[in-house]
């Protein structure tokens, strides 16, 4: 089985992955920029734009992308486990919560790239519809005054958040590196801009539903996101659907990109590679050291992803030749 994805499906997968990853990173995992998070998302998109335009599969960039994407996918899977653990009706072991999600990701990889991309495209439309309904239902709970002070923690923090955002964009856009055919820079930038704008909008909305706080743990922030205690209870279900569907699309896209990159390096059967990659991501997601790895990716991910791509571009597209078998 050859793991492949059309450029159109890759762009759809990238749009959803970028939106969800930026929101997860800037609003839940590392919300240190406070009200300035939406600016960080846009700065991240600007920083990552050359990367998104240039990224192609190559041996050097491929290996870096495999490592970064796999680590970030493990981090996303761990986030999903925490979310499901928080929402589960019963007290359940983390493995029980994680394995079905990993199985769903594996099934998605086996259905191949186009299924993942077009599912993300449909998912984005449904999510938009649900978010509009939720927004209207809890319109009275939004407080624009909570968006002040508008720069949150200030420019240094916003810029740091921008670099992190660029790293998350890089690992969420790796489907582009394995997409069939070639597409124009503009067609690659559109989903990037769309994803960043959608994430910025969601960050602004979440800023209006929960005030800037100087404390609070991960669960608190997740609670803010899903049922913040201020909005009507009946908006919780659509929010949960949007949240988990988005995370699943992100995970599936990352697992697929990782498996497809491995296949281009090792040239093995896609089914076996998919199973091995998802199993590896599953194992890593349960490692205690993952948090530190996730923090490292947040801080240095963009640089790590950008250097081989930049080197390839500067050296005259040598990696592009790899893609065509040279």
């Amino acid at each position, binding site marked *: 089985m050859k793991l492949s994805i059309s450029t159109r499906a890759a762009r759809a997968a990238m749009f959803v992955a970028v939106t969800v990853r930026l929101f997860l990173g800037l609003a839940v995992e590392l919300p240190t920029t*406070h*009200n300035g998070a939406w600016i960080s998302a846009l700065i991240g998109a600007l920083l990552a734009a050359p990367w998104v335009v240039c990224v192609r599969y190559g041996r050097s960039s491929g290996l870096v992308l495999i490592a970064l994407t796999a680590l970030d996918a493990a981090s996303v899977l761990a986030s999903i486990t925490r979310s*499901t*653990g*928080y929402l*589960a*009706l*019963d007290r*359940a072991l983390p493995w*029980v*919560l994680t*394995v*079905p999600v990993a*199985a*769903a990701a594996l*099934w998605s990889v086996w259905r191949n790239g186009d299924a993942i991309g077009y599912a993300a495209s449909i998912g984005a439309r449904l999510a938009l519809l649900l978010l509009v309904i939720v927004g209207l239902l809890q319109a009275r709970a939004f*407080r624009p*005054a*909570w968006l*002040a*002070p*508008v*720069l*949150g*923690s*200030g420019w240094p923090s916003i810029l740091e958040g921008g670099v992190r955002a660029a790293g998350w964009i890089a690992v969420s856009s790796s489907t582009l590196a394995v997409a069939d055919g070639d597409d124009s820079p503009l067609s690659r930038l559109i989903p990037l801009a769309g994803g960043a704008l959608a994430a910025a909008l969601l960050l602004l909305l979440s800023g209006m539903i*929960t*005030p*800037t*706080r*100087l*404390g*609070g*743990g991960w*669960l*608190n922030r997740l*609670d803010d996101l899903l*049922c*913040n*205690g*201020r909005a009507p*209870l009946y908006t919780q279900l659509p929010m949960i659907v949007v949240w988990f569907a988005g995370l699943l699309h992100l995970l599936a896209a990352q697992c697929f990109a990782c498996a497809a990159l491995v296949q281009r390096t090792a040239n093995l059967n896609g089914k076996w590679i998919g199973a091995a990659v998802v199993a590896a991501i599953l194992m890593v997601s349960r490692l205690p050291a993952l948090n530190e790895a996730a923090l490292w990716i947040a801080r240095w991910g963009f640089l790590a992803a950008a250097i081989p791509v930049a080197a390839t571009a500067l050296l005259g597209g040598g990696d592009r030749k790899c893609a065509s078998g040279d």
Partner: protein
Amino acid sequence: MRIRGLILMLLVVLTLSGCSVTGEVENQAYVLVLGVDRVNGGELELTARVPQIGKGSGDSEESGGSYLTFSASGVDWPRALEALEQATPRPVNLSHIEMLVVSEDLAREVDFAALLNRIAETPHLYTTARFVVCEGRARVFLQELDTVIGTRLSSEIDAMLDHYAQRGYIPRSSLADACFAFNSIYGDGVAILGTVAEDTRAAVSLTDPGELSDEASPMKQRYGGAALFSEGRMVGTLGADRVMLLNLLRGEKSDLPFECEGRHYTLTPKGGAGKQVTHDNKQTILVVNQRFTTLDDICDEDKERLEAEIEQKLVEVIQACQSLSSDPFGFAEAAAARFSTVRSWLIFDWREHYKSADIRVNVDVG
């Protein structure tokens, strides 16, 4: 291929986290109201009202109603919760809490905000629960709840508190609201104030628990007034007669019944309270511009008197809170808009400016 896929899906289903035997609704102890007290020189005492699922309505005096009361204490929140688990014959489930009741003594403790955060961060605890501070012990308050908890999972509590909030006797306050306020960089939180009256006639009186009324009510609890907080701890109260104005300043759009020189008016707020914070020669000024409409007949002379009366009452409410260093109105939000970063806002030290701020209230009845 399809069969293999089907088998894989069935295998995956086996790993899904569904309801185990202990997860069945009948086997859970759904806590509807949770009370928290400080007892025995420092221990936290939790009192939980749990419905007996499958029983009928809860008015039977003989059986103590269809609700069971469990109490347990521990040196801190996790240990008290663990003790409650031990005292309760079924797994304690906090996902349906409708009301969290905290004793006033506990709410006045210096590190109360830390405790409330700890409570709110408890997995599966429903943070939309109403937040009530009661005079006296929370345990006693909870024991008087039988008559108002309905047969459905406490829709009665919601309906009752919504009704009181709509009438302006209590503020709208949830556990999430309080926690957000305690941790946020903006103003302070408020809580619903509850009391257990000596008898049911005293419970009906809104303005003074000691004042007996001719009206009758089957319940001894009295919900009226607001508990005020400053820096995460309770610092004072506002009576039910002033909560209406507090709600108005907080942006509630309920009608305001107002009495002026023996005549009753019903005023409808037009838009939210226009709160602004300005600075004049380093003096902070709190500005409120509130417009009302009314269907009542009112001559120009009475209108001016009414406006002046409302302005005076609003100033008194703001001053009362200023003296307690509590900003439940949201002036801080208006003031924060002038600052570009959280750091510059924190350096500004809003609380100090707020305490000594001048007040300008403009009321327009149209």
